[in-house]
């Protein structure tokens, strides 16, 4: 951290010098600025912007689906890979398949101590991002984030298909043994969207109730959908009652 602050002051100093040298004309100053070798480090912002421009939609000031697909290809990561969710979380992206300029640049800047200002650096960061899923608290934050991110703008609830897809992704990581039963149950019995509360409560369920359901409390204020799921498991003989 001390180094950072030092650098900052350095940059200021250099900038001042350049301006002085350029007789306080900005354009001139900029040329001088960029030509000087010490200033290489200050070019993150510009590189980030370049990176952004590489993927943004030609007509709009955002990166949309195509751009993201390209980014994933360049990163050698499948665009349905869960690591993209983690990245979106860092970006605080409002919705999937879209990154605003602020989200993209802000997100990359937040990706850890080593500045990510190039594709290679980003690619190198990917294992770290994956590892964050193993952290209990971070996983929870990412999980909660995923609901708002995956749903349609302006909708209160998450479409069932999308929810199932997200759950499969997330709980493959977390290794919840009942994930397949859960998805099957939803497809058989529940044809409606998923509410925010149900989404959040499912994680609690996965974390606190053991996969044999031995400590499931019917009076436990679980959302009705989860009670129904437990009923479904008993009815289909997957577990015995009592």
């Amino acid at each position, binding site marked *: 951290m001390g180094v950072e602050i030092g650098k900052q002051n350095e940059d200021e100093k250099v900038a001042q010098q350049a301006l002085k040298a350029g007789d306080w004309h900005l354009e001139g100053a900029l040329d001088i600025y960029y030509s000087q070798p010490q200033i290489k480090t200050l070019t993150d912002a510009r590189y980030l912007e370049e990176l952004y421009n590489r993927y943004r939609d030609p007509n709009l000031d955002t990166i949309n689906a195509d751009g993201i697909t390209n980014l994933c290809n360049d990163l050698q990561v499948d665009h349905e890979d869960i690591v993209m969710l983690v990245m979106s979380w860092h970006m605080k992206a409002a919705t999937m398949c879209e990154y605003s300029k602020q989200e993209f640049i802000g997100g990359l800047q937040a990706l850890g101590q080593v500045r990510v200002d190039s594709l290679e650096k980003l690619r190198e960061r990917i294992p770290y991002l994956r590892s964050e899923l193993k952290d209990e608290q971070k996983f929870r934050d990412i999980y909660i984030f995923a609901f708002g991110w995956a749903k349609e703008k302006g909708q209160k609830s998450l479409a069932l298909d999308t929810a199932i897809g997200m759950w499969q992704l997330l709980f493959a990581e977390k290794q919840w043994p009942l994930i397949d039963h859960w998805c099957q149950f939803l497809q058989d019995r529940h044809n409606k969207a998923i509410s925010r509360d149900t989404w959040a409560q499912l994680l609690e369920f996965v974390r606190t109730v053991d996969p044999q359901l031995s400590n499931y409390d019917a009076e436990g204020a679980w959302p*009705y959908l989860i009670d129904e799921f437990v009923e479904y498991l008993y009815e289909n003989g997957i577990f015995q009652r009592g």
Partner: protein
Amino acid sequence: MVLHKYGEKLYSGLVATMTAHLKEISKSIESAQGGSFLEELNRKWAEHNKALQMIRDILMYMDRTFVPSTHKTPVYELGLNLWRDNVIHCSNIQTRLLNTLLELIQKERTGEVINRGLMRNIIKMLMDLSASVYQEDFEKPFLEVSATFYRVESQEFIECCDCGDYLKKAERRLNEEIERVSHYLDLRSEFKITKVVEREMIANHMPRLVHMDNSGLVNMLLDDKYEDLGRMYNLFRRVDNGLSTIRDVMTSHIRETGKQLVTDPERVKDPVEFVQRLLDEKDKYDKIISLAFNNDKTFQNALNSSFEFFINLNPRSPEFISLFVDDKLRKGLKGVSEEDVEVVLDKVMMLFRYLQEKDVFEKYYKQHLAKRLLSGKTVSDDAERSLIVKLKTECGYQFTSKLEGMFTDMKTSQDTIQGFYASHGAELGDGPTLVVQVLTTGSWPTQPSVPCNLPAELSLLCEKFRSYYLGTHTGRRLSWQTNMGTADIKATFSKGQKHELNVSTFQMCVLMLFNNADKLSYREIEQATEIPALELKRCLQSLACVKGKNVLRKEPMSKDIGENDVFLFNDKFTSKFYKVKIGTVVAQKESEPEKQETRQRVEEDRKPQIEAAIVRIMKSRKVLDHNNIIAEVTKQLQSRFLPNPVEIKKRIESLIEREFLERDSADRKLYRYLA
């Protein structure tokens, strides 16, 4: 002597003399034979008493001076003690006395007459000697012997008597003992001896008595044996758990029979019978509790809770009770006095109170009331209003405001129609007479309005009415409810006989077509009237397929209405009566699909009520956990229905979704109100 300081000598002399004398007496008593033993004892005791009194008088000075100062026993008391020690406790007398007394009591218990006066004197002697003499030398053994006696006797009785007889015998024995005490024992023994009898004859045999085959409690209840039941009540209340034993057996019996009553498929066929049986059952037990159980409140409560239990076992109870009321208000109460009407209505209210799903009753009651009002078939307006007042008192203004709205509409409509004819009377003179009831939507049970094509002369008339009404009530909308109307039409048949037919509006539309055609196919009728298929079939069925009401003939003559059938006017129709009723607007037990539909509507209506309750509770408590919300909501709504905890949970989730509530972040069972 005392004065001369010879007190000691006098006293001890007294003791010695008396002792010696008493020993003599004792011998003489011992030697008394058989029956005269007690008499001898009694006589000697009387003499001794007299003597003691005299001695006391003579030695009064000593008694007052020497005795207290030397703490010696006063003379009289001394005399008693000496009697006790030398006579009563004399080894040859003590046991013999006790045995004699007990033998006499035993004799009396087996029916012999004994000398009660003698007994009284002897017992009194013991009491006078001291309480402990009475207790040790008589009472304790007496109680033990009595216990054994009654143990044996009760065992004998229970083997050979039925319950009623046994209880009679037990009661008799109890009364005997009480009488015995009053005649010759210490009054304080009454409590103790009755306890013995109660324990041996009643407490020890309670279960066996109550459950005795063919004569036990249940049989007594079934056969209305008021006297036996009363006796059982009075005897059992003396022992611990006596009354609760009776009450528990009665309760489970009532619950069992009640359950069978409401789930018996035979009974359920006739709703009015069903409800009558419930009322009869209630009357029966009210009478038993009043005549035999002393109007005991705990029994009344047990009866009420039992009724509440089994009435709600049948989900159709609310519907049936409404149908019962409907039957009474339509015809059952015809010609009945005002007080008797009140009695019936109060009984109905009593059953109503037992219902858990009062909102279901409300729905049916409204439907049935609407039919009664619209068909003009109510026996007494006063009776109708009286019931509404009772419902209002029980459930509050909200319950009945809509019902009252219905009555208001009826009255207003009368005025409206009068006004209509007053202003249009001249031009309408010869045409059909129109009676319109204008129903305020919202007060009446909702029915989808099914328009149909009215015959020309009628549609003209209806239009005139519509413009009249809207002329005085701008901004309103009228829609004809042709599925709820009735018509009286005159028909002439082949032999010239005329009949007045009372039919539904739909049926009227169909029949009027036959003024212009003798024969019409189903499709032609359907096209001309535009009555929807289901209704049309029902309507044609009652016109053509019901014996005694078949003003139409159908080809083919099958039972059901087929879409290729052809209908003809049946000019061979006959009936004993001038007026023939063919309408189908009477309230009946709902068919299965109708029942489902009503049930569905009731469930839908409950959802907002549950939500409102949740919001009210959370607004005032701010934070509350899941189980407590369920309990509070249930309590708030219990006067209308019993909410399903699962439904409450769903409503909570819906409120979370709509951001009225949120879950606490630390404790997932806690909910918070969001302002």
